[in-house]
């Protein structure tokens, strides 16, 4: 394994949490579409102490934002541990490796390897994409950087290696659905130490997926975190159900959200006075947080799940009640 004397691959807070057998919690922080460090500090303050590490997205949804490593540096200064997200969309193998040397030098130790959303969805749809490698190849490359001390070309590091706890994403409900557990296994075989899944709302289907994952035995080779996220409104639930590939939203979740706003049923936003609109949003958001808490409690019972990844982008305030409500607070000392 790695050259660390302490037995850890990299010794990050996240790795220690996994290795200690605690149910890990990660959050997500979306850098701003600006060069403002205060936005990062503010978001970091909302997550600090509640999560073991926080993912810093990399030009999420192909919209230009402050770089993941730049924002991650600020997050580190704030005393929160980042998980650097790195996509294959914007960088070739030279740029990925160079940026990772920098990230390691700046103290970052957790990495999530992603293929990246296609640029057509973002704010520069006429850009040339890169995709020199795919996420699996990146997982393999960064694993060999840490384990063998070599670059993708095979050359050895001249000095300190870039070592990361290597993460990968999984989409349990995307098509072809029968292939998804196998693809997860493939990512773990390629070197992934931890996995964060796409948003889970359908625990029954997720349990079936995890059963197949356990049959493959790979849940023992990597730490699998289920992706969860609070829903803000019944409309958002329906939108995700119908429009986002790979997300299943069962009717009972939609019903719970609708029920929470029952007092205002049938009313359009335009028909409501501002304070009523606020009250309705509040009722929906409270229920969204409760749904999320209930999901985490159910997911926690599934054998082979090592933690949850809470995606509450642009709603970081929700993380506190979720983590507390799911009895995941305070975070264990490791």
């Amino acid at each position, binding site marked *: 394994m790695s050259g660390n004397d302490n037995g850890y691959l990299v010794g990050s807070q996240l790795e220690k949490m996994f290795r200690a057998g605690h149910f890990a919690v990660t959050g997500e922080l979306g850098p701003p579409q600006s060069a403002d460090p205060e936005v990062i500090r503010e978001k970091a303050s909302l997550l600090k102490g509640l999560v073991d590490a926080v993912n810093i997205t990399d030009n999420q949804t192909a919209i230009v934002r402050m770089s993941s490593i730049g924002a991650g540096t600020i997050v580190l200064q704030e005393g929160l541990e980042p998980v650097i997200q790195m996509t294959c969309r914007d960088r070739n193998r030279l740029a990925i490796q160079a940026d990772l040397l920098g990230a390691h030098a700046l103290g970052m130790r957790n990495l999530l390897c992603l293929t990246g959303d296609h640029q057509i969805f973002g704010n520069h749809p006429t850009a040339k994409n890169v995709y020199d490698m795919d996420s699996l*190849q990146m997982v393999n490359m960064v694993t060999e950087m840490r384990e063998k001390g070599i670059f993708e070309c095979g050359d050895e590091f001249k000095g300190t290696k870039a070592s990361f706890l290597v993460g990968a994403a999984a989409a349990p409900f995307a*098509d072809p659905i029968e*292939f998804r557990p196998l693809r997860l296994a493939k990512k773990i075989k390629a070197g992934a130490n931890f996995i964060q899944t796409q948003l889970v709302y359908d625990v029954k289907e997720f349990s079936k997926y995890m059963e197949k994952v356990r049959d493959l035995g790979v849940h023992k080779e990597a730490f699998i975190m289920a992706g969860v996220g609070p829903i803000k409104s019944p409309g958002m639930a329906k939108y995700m159900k119908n429009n986002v590939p*790979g997300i299943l939203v069962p009717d009972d979740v939609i019903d719970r959200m609708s029920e929470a706003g029952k007092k205002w049923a049938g009313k359009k936003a335009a028909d409501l006075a501002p304070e009523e609109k606020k009250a309705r949003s509040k009722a929906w958001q409270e229920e969204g947080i409760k749904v999320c808490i209930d999901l985490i409690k159910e997911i926690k019972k599934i054998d082979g799940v090592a933690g949850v990844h809470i995606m509450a982008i642009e709603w970081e305030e929700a993380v506190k009640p979720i983590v507390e409500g799911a009895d995941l607070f305070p975070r264990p000392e490791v």
Partner: protein
Amino acid sequence: MITGEQKPLEEIQSLLGDAKKVLVLGCGTCVTVCFAGGSREAQILSSSLRMASKLNKQPLDVTDLTVQRQCEWEYLDEVEKEIADADVVLSLACGIGVQAIAEHFPESWVVPGLNTTFLGLPTEQGVWEERCAACGDCILGITGGICPIARCSKTLLNGPCGGSEAGHCEIDPDIPCVWQLIYDRLISKGKQDVLLELQKPKNWQVSRDGGPRKIVREDLRLISDEA
């Protein structure tokens, strides 16, 4: 085949500039079969240009001709005189034909009438789809004869991303998810084990990324560099 699409008439007119004598040169091969730049299209475009120029009260002298293949010198030699006589040659060939004319007749001026689009095939009457990216290192032997380089929006080599839904690519419901196609085909042939093997990063050096490419076959050459 190489497919192409005719540029909008306004763009073509602006490319012609102040030329008085225009030769619209069709190509009898790929762009003929994709109905973009054969003799029929050359004739129609010539008429359109003539009519438009009359309306603009700046009549153009437009003639049209079509050669078998604009991408070979010998076919271009057949129309050497017509090319020399024209102020501008409006080539309806792919980009190769346009460049062949510029290279072979440096005294003449040539502009493209088409946008060269891709290497593909007609999948039904009036529909063409991309099939090959000419990457220089064919992997069809492991992907069941279906190319993820040309047909996956992210050129993935290790299976479908999370944007595959009901057989479609998330970037456009009209685009089939090529990894779904590859998956189905490999399963049907009992070759699914290939899907579990890690495909290493591709060698893009033999693609365009290694610089413009050239093939030299000494066994076929009439004059060698040594001579």
